[in-house]
């Protein structure tokens, strides 16, 4: 049995409104399946589940606004294949040993449900004192063992939420030795007031405008306020440094034009996708730009989840992520980008697209300015910008020609890297764009 929680769909999200349930109790769900639609200050977002199971109970009715981390539904964890058996288990899972752990069975024959539970909690079954038949560990025994484990543990998600809310997660963990600190506790703590007086003040939702004190903010106002809060925190907390490099795009655009010619529109790739691919590949060479700065330290990410700033028609922007962008083929990345832009503009992003970009790219596009000094999305530590592609005189091997050029910029966090490392990133970017066929 697991609680399915209101997800954090970006560092600036404090609460969400459940606008639609797409499942009912008894429904089998699969990892990655969209189960609900949640409205945030920025847009309506389709949220997914992260494990297979069966919906046991919906805890939050449509129309409710609840804080991030609030249980939305209870899901019975499914054994592999159980969901396909056609017998939905709406009742709580049986804790009693299954027939194969009947009298005479060895302690080693623990039920798969309990084994899975132990694995989830990081408990070694060999160390658990069993109270079931013949000393077989039960689910409750595993819970006891998990609580007894001494090391204070904070889930990565709780750590991030703690950062976002200005809560000292390690203090929470120390207060309850052996317990796992979950995001919900962090939320409770945040609601109770700051733990550390020196912690930065938690930005409060803006008060309604004075002129219309009785009316709720419009969606555009709410989005602007959310962007404003996040960017203000970025400027307040992150010591930005900025670098720029002019990059010749003649090789990349020439290669792309040749690739696209003779292909139907549905198979064409736009220059932005090539820039994003290069940005993602270059991050692998300078991994200290990729991850989260939380609790005074940098957590490098093993994956490159590339945030893409998408301007919305009618104003505002969102920066959802393309997961593992560095490993995608160019065609796959283009498809992901199309999906992202279409969803962002129609207000139907996926929760997984919103939650965890590790570095963000902003591309000013054809009508934009020539360069952007980016503002980093906390808790990320770098933002890559591409200015409008313009034709410029460009010298190659002593010969002057007219080339398409973009000014690439990097805004990065001085607490993690410095200009030398940042320069290496821009050099890697230029190198990838000079050999597009290898992207």
């Amino acid at each position, binding site marked *: 049995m697991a609680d399915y929680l209101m997800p954090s769909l970006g560092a600036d999200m404090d609460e969400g409104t459940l606008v639609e349930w797409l499942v009912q109790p008894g429904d089998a769900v699969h990892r990655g399946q969209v189960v609900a639609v949640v409205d945030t200050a920025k847009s309506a977002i389709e949220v997914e589940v992260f494990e297979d199971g069966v919906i046991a109970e919906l805890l939050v009715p449509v129309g409710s606004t609840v804080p991030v981390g609030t249980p939305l539904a209870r899901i019975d964890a499914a054994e592999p294949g159980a969901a396909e058996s056609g017998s939905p288990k709406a009742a709580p899972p049986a804790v009693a040993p299954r027939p194969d752990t009947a009298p005479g069975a060895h302690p080693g024959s623990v039920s798969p449900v309990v084994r899975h539970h132990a694995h989830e909690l990081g408990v070694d079954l060999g160390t658990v004192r069993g109270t079931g038949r013949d000393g077989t560990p039960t689910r409750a025994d595993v819970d006891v063992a998990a609580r007894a484990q001494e090391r204070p543990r904070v889930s990565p998600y709780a750590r991030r939420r703690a950062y976002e809310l200005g809560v000292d997660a390690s203090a929470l963990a120390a207060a309850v030795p052996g317990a796992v600190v979950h995001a919900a506790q962090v939320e409770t703590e945040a609601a109770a007031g700051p733990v550390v007086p020196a912690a930065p003040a938690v930005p409060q939702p803006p008060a309604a405008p004075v002129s219309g004190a009785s009316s709720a903010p419009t969606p555009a106002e709410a989005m602007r306020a959310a962007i404003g809060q996040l960017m203000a925190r970025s400027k307040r907390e992150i010591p930005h440094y900025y670098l720029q490099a002019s990059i010749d795009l003649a090789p990349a655009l020439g290669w792309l*034009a040749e690739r*696209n*010619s*003779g292909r*139907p*529109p*549905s198979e*064409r790739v*736009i*220059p*932005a996708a090539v820039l994003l691919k290069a940005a993602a590949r270059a991050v692998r060479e300078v991994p200290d730009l990729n991850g989260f700065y939380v609790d005074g330290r940098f957590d490098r990410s093993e994956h490159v989840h590339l945030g893409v700033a998408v301007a919305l*028609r*009618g104003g505002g922007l969102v920066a959802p992520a393309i997961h593992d962008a560095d490993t995608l083929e160019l065609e796959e990345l283009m498809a992901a*980008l*199309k999906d992202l*832009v279409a969803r962002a503009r129609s207000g139907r992003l996926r929760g997984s697209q919103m939650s965890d970009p590790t570095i963000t790219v902003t591309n000013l*596009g*054809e*009508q934009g300015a020539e360069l952007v000094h980016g503002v980093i999305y906390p808790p990320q530590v770098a933002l890559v910008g591409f200015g409008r592609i313009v034709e410029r005189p460009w010298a190659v091997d002593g010969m002057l020609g007219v080339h398409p050029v973009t000014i690439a910029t990097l805004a990065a966090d001085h607490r993690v890297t410095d200009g030398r490392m940042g320069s290496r990133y821009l050099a890697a970017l230029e190198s990838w764009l000079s050999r597009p066929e290898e992207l």
Partner: protein
Amino acid sequence: MNRDEARTAVLTALSRIAPEADLEALDPGADLRTEIDLDSMDFLGLVESLAETTGVDIPEADYHDVRSLDGLVVYVAARA
């Protein structure tokens, strides 16, 4: 396809890409990228949509001829 049919097809495709734009008030000779804020992804979507509805596939090499409403109408009318 005559001009009127082509115009209808183009306007239908545009209204899908930029639902909030006032297409009645559109300057038929103006660059759509600035006129109704189409970026390269939008433009590709427009080209895809026209290929589906009219069968006219506009290659990238011809993009400079179809930057305005009039340009699109003439291009599509001549080929569909």
